[in-house]
Structures are given as C-alpha cells and as structure tokens.
C-alpha cells in the first residue's frame, strides 16, 4: 500500500476538528444512557448475587 498524506485534511483537522453530527450524538448518548441505566438497575436488584459469585475468586486470592 502506498503511503499517502493528506495535507489539506491534516491542516483542517489540526486547526478545528470536525464536530460529531448532532444526530449521531443523540443516538450515542441515548444508547449509552439506556445501557448504563439497565446496568444500574441490574446491580440494584441482583448486586448481592453478583458479589457472591465474584466472591469465590476473592476468597481464593485472599486464602
């Protein structure tokens, strides 16, 4: 593959990076919000079982 540099693109990027399109930003934030909220809900309702299952590894390390 041939080395190719793009001085115009580089110069533009260096001066002012292109912003994320607003639509993409909404989708990304929405998906992340749902994932985090779901994760926190699961931790709230099943956190103790989670720690109990991980506890075997901790117990092994701690002797």
């Amino acid at each position, binding site marked *: 593959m041939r080395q*190719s*540099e*793009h001085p115009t693109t580089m110069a533009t990027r260096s001066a002012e990076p292109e912003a994320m399109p607003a639509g993409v930003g909404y989708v990304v934030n929405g998906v992340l919000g749902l994932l985090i909220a779901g994760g926190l809900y699961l931790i709230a309702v099943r*956190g*103790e079982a989670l720690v109990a299952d991980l506890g075997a590894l901790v*117990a*092994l*390390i*701690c*002797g």
Partner: protein
Amino acid sequence: MTAATSRLPSPLWLVILSAAAVAGIGMGLRQVMGLYLVPVSTDLGLGYAVFAFAVAIANLVWGFAAPVTGIVSDKYGTGYVVVFGAVATAIGILLLYAARSEAGLYLSGVFLGLGVAGAGVNAVVGAVGRAAPPEERTSAIASVGMGSGIGILIALPYTHVLIEALGWQTSLLVLAATAMLILPLAIPLSAGPAATANAAAAPPQDARAALAEAFRHPSFWLLNAGFFVCGFHVVFYGTHLPAYVASQGLGPEVAVWGLTVVGLGNLIGTWLAGQWGRRLPKRIGLSLIYAGRAVVFLGFLYLPMTAFTVIALSAALGLLWLSTIPLTSGLVATFFGPRWMTMLYGIVFLSHQIGSFLGVWLGGAIYDRLQSYDAMWWISVALGVFAALVHLPIAERPVARMAEPAAA
C-alpha cells in the same frame, strides 16, 4: 502490510467514538471472567486454583503483550491490532467454552490476555493521540477512558444475567459474538502513522531509537513509578473491598454500592482529568490524584466504618480512579510525540500491571497473616504520597529531538 501504510483519516469524533467503543467492549469482556470461576471449575471438576491461574495468565500476558501490540499499532496502524485483539478475544472465549482440561483453560487465558492487549484501552490510545491535535489530545483520550469505564461498569451485571438465563456455556457464545462487534470499529482506527494531526512536527524515528530515548529519559521512569502505584491501588481496592466490608461487619450490599459508585465516579473523574489536561500541567494533575488517594485511604484508617463512609470514600476514590490514564498517556505524548505513543504507553502500562499483581497478592497475604487490612491501607497511603511526589519533578516538555526540524 508496510510500515508506511496509511489511508484517508476518519474524522476525529469517529476515531474517538470507535476507540471508546473498542475499549468499552474489550475491557468489559476482560472484566467478566471472574464470574465463570465457579461454574467452569464445578462443571469441569477442576479446583478453583486452575481457573484463577488462567485469569492470572491473562493479566500477565496482557501486560507483556501491550508494548508489542503497541509497536504494531504505531508502525502499521491500530486497525490491525484491534482486529487481532477482537479475534484473539473470541478465540479465548471459545476455548473457555470448549475447555475440558487445565491446558484448555490456560490456553484460553493466553488468548484472552492477547485479546485485551489488542482491543483494550492501551491499544487505542495511540490512534486517538495521533488523530487529535495536541491541545485536544488529553480530553480525547479521556473520552476513550470513559468508554472503557462504561464497559467495565455494565459488563458484570449484564453477563451475570446472561449466565443465569442461558447457562455459562451458551453465555460464552454470546460474549464471543460480542467480541466480533469490535471488528467494524477497527475501520476508523486503520489510518497509519502518517495520519497524525502534526505528522511533520518531528524527525522520523524507528522503534528501537524511540525505546532507547524513552529509557534514557528520567521523567519516563518517574511516570512508570507513578503508574505502578495506580495499578497497585485500583486492583487492591477493586478486588478486596468485598472482603474488607465483610471484615467490618457490613452487609455485601455495601460492597456492591461501593464498587458501583467507584465506577460512576470514575466516569466523572476521567472527564475532569481530560479537561484538566487541556489547560493545566498534567504532572500536577497526577500528583493531586495520588495525593487525593492517600487522603481517601487515610479515611479507611481513621473514620468510623459505616455503610455511608464506605460508599462516600468509594465515590471519592472513583473520581481518582482511571483519571490517571489520560494524564499519563498524555505525558508520554508530550515527551516523545504521538509517533510511538502506543508502544511507550504499553511499557508504562506493564508497570501498572506489575503493581496490580502486587496489590491483589499483597492484600491477600497481609490479611491472611494479620486478619486486618490496616497495614494495606498504610502501604496504600505511603505509595500514594510516593506517587504524588515522584510526579512533581517530571519535566513536562518535549525531548530535545522534538524541537528539531523534521528535515534534519
């Protein structure tokens, strides 16, 4: 594949988004392996120690492979390394799925370690560091750190549900498929080393010369010492908090919420560190982070331990958790430029992994001997003060070579 490989660079926001998603998936998948200890060991009729050793192998392979994947990433483009990491992770998970013996589990550990070395946060910092202009570099890497933090935070509860709903073996197939989601994310990260926001800013340098230069640079060693402490602190706390909480007579829900607020605080702290690095000296930021950790660990020695204090101290520690990543990797780029950033950060990361190993092992060894974590808190305080001090004399400026004209 040639060292000069390059393609039209993607927009910076797409590079950051892809790198953050890669780090989130890669680090999340690494995080969940502890959940498989009991079901895998029970079904295969092996002792827990075999699986724990496979996890230890994965962590060691990760640490030692990080500089190597860094060389490939810096020389040929991060996309190749990310594809390798995704495939190695999927192979490691499938080997765990198919394991019938100790050897199968150990081999799985090797591939999982290689996988996270190729598709973890360490593997993508260079791509982001090269794509971002210098003034935005630390905040761009902070976004990747936040992606990694989100992956770590949510992977455990989702995988726990998967194991319960599908059984451990089928859940591993879902995880292997999840690893494959990384593949398309490699495309925006495939721009070669020529695609650097300030590509012409420094004279060319090969990997050997970059290593020699870094090893001769005192500030690089100070950074290594500090990141060793970071690894010691975070893995000790993350691993031993449930046992500490139990030793204080508190319920397991306190550890659950303690670790959860660490994860949430980490997102805020990493963002703050990225903003700090845009304007203020990174070495001072790191010094404050480690000094802050020392203060938090003193809290575990002198405050009455209640559910509130454990959760409040965990929240404070979360703010100081992986906020070290953007500042530490940013300093590597400040010293040597972004050309060999992944490789050099991989070496700093190796010292982090050695610290991690010592933190988790020493915590167990000291608790076994003394039936108390007090000595570990004191060691953590002392290391926090040490790390705060070693960052102060760091010369936060480019090495002399960077000031030479590119044509020299």
